[in-house]
């Protein structure tokens, strides 16, 4: 009897339970609010509708959340510089391409430059966190404040526009493809990351370093290198998000690209059921978390909440979710559950 129960885990104990419930909750609210929420139409050869919009807009956040998940898992801290890094990467890309009718450098070179910039920022963060043992939040605070400043210097404090139409393909639609391009980029990145983490020991290494850095080192893992790697990877993810974001508007405004996205990314990781203290992580939880946040944002826009007021609602959601995950509240639940089960046991006994 008891052996069978091991396999029959109650559904609410699966790690993806909470994130999926959150997402469903948001979607149900939407369905009640706007009946044609799930309707998808075809306009000008591309799919159109709320769901597509959410998938499109959440792609950047999904990419960030993937990078952030690994950073949180390995170091138990957060990278708050991702928003500034994506602005910097976007600035580098557009500054390299120039604002003329044709590109100054080949497109692929500018993309590579932006990615290298992102990884360089990640290297700085990673070096400080892993080798200098600085607290992650403080180490990334440096680029958080400096990143936008450097981006402003790269663009000369102007909003730069790119003229060639092809530049917009990455952030919008490629002609003839019905789904938005960012969706494919995000799906590809999540797939590759999942394959690498799941099919190689790297995923396990990251978890083990996150659970105990010193014990992992004694086992023979290069803890520092693994933490360093996650920060570089997160920097690259931030750069990709920045590229999508500048391609969407075909311009760079270093003050506003990726503003507050670091908070959304951390939120996505938390909603995804990942502990922010590091260790075990679920990549797909974070992906669902990111989509949930975007769905929530879209919902609030549909309910005509001003963009500036949205943080208020997000804050309430975060507090509820992290309170539910807090060890103290979990203990309360357990004691309540324990009391209930002993009572039911007694009732069974009395009935017998």
């Amino acid at each position, binding site marked *: 009897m008891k052996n069978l129960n091991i396999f029959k885990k109650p559904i609410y104990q699966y790690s993806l339970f909470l994130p999926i419930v959150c997402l469903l909750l948001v979607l149900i609210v939407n369905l009640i609010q706007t009946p044609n929420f799930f309707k998808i139409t075809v306009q000008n050869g591309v799919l159109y509708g709320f769901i597509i919009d959410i998938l499109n807009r959440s792609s950047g956040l999904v990419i960030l959340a993937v990078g952030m998940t690994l950073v949180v898992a390995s170091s138990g801290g*957060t990278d708050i510089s991702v928003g500034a890094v994506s602005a910097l990467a976007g600035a580098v890309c557009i500054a390299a391409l120039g604002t003329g009718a044709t590109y100054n450098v080949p497109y692929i070179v500018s993309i590579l430059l932006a990615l290298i910039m992102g990884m360089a920022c990640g290297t700085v963060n990673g070096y*400080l966190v892993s080798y*200098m*043992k*600085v*607290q992650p*939040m*403080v*180490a990334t*605070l*440096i*680029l*958080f*404040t*400096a990143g*936008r*400043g*450097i981006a*402003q*210097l790269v663009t000369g*404090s102007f909003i730069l526009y790119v003229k060639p139409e092809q530049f917009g393909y990455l952030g919008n639609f490629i002609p003839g493809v019905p789904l938005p391009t960012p969706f494919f980029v995000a799906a590809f990145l999540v797939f590759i990351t999942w394959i690498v983490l799941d099919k190689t020991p790297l995923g396990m290494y990251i978890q083990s370093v996150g659970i105990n850095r010193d014990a992992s080192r004694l086992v023979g893992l290069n803890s520092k290198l693994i933490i360093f790697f996650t920060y570089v990877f997160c920097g690259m993810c931030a750069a990709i998000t920045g590229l999508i974001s500048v391609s969407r508007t075909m311009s760079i405004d270093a003050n506003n690209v990726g503003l507050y996205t670091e*908070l959304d990314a*951390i939120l996505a990781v*938390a909603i995804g059921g990942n502990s*922010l*203290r590091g260790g075990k992580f679920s990549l797909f939880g974070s992906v669902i978390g990111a989509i949930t946040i975007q769905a929530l944002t879209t919902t609030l826009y549909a309910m005509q909440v*001003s963009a*500036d*007021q*949205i*943080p*208020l*609602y*997000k*804050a*309430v959601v*975060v*507090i509820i979710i*992290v*309170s539910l995950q*807090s*060890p*103290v*509240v979990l203990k309360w639940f357990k004691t309540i559950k324990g009391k209930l089960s002993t009572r039911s046991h007694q009732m069974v006994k009395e009935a017998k």
Partner: protein
Amino acid sequence: MNRAKINSPQGKMRFSNQIGQKLLERNFLLFVTIALFIAMYIAGLIAYKDKNFGNVQTFLNLFTSNAGLIIVSVGMTMVLITGGIDISVGSVVAVTCMMLAAMMERAGIGAAPAMSIVLLFGLAFGAAQGWLISYLNIQPFIVTLAGMFFARGLTAVISLEMITITNETFLAIAQKRIYLPFGGYLNRKGVMIYPYIYPTVVMAIVIVIIAYLMLKYTKFGRSIYAVGGREQSARLMGLNVKRTKFFVYILNGLLSALGGIAFCLNTTGAFVELARGFEMDAIAATVIGGTPLTGGVGNVYGSLFGVLIKALIETFVSFQGNISSWWSKIIISALLAFFIVLQNLLVRRKNKTKSAT
């Protein structure tokens, strides 16, 4: 044999390590900060000799433009000493400004009641955050991140448009000049002009002094250090760790609201994006002032110098005139990086000397 050991290079090294340890105990980082400030000020005197940099008024303006930041940094210092962090302070400053403006301009409430309501709000906000952090045991970073969202959203809920304050009492406080009896100079007409400060500066200095005395001489102040040093030891010593942390966050909420009032007296208006990045300025000033984020160590007057260094960099950039104001942010970040690395090296050395003895 023994004498040979003492005279050996190892013995000498131990001796030099002892000196290093003594320097560490006497707040080496604070010394670096103050030395840096003085060096920068002298460099400014030399570089901008012809632009009135040496005026007492220029020096006092360092305080005037940053009175709010000084007050907020005091609260931040205490939070960092307990080993926590608060990134909501910038948004709290914004929301207190907005509440003040809305209450005085839209609801017609007087300046004094409006200020007391705002202080109560800060207290309640700090209490809510403190409860979540200390009693529910949630990471401070996450709680205050949500607090930052909440306060910024609340600012937008109160008003999306900018509100300019026209309340007479409030403006009278904001524009009241307190002249100092010294440091004056004769202007071209031969009239003696004395340097002046605003009430906010007095407020900031008083707060720094009270906080210094509290941290140094009261039971509560000492228990803040104990909690930050090592929580478990503090608990075993019989201190109420949770309550200490709770009170620190309440105090921090109150100081953020007070900083918001000082900030508002400076801007006499409020809008949604007010004080963006203020929390990072406060953290940077505190870290530059010699309070590491690991907790247990720190000083409020160090944070005061941290703020002054930031103000000095901004003054340099504005005196230079032709360079982008973004440079001040980049320079502050570079300084921050320098101080973080320095702190780390010192901590490492301390650990090494500890393990050696």
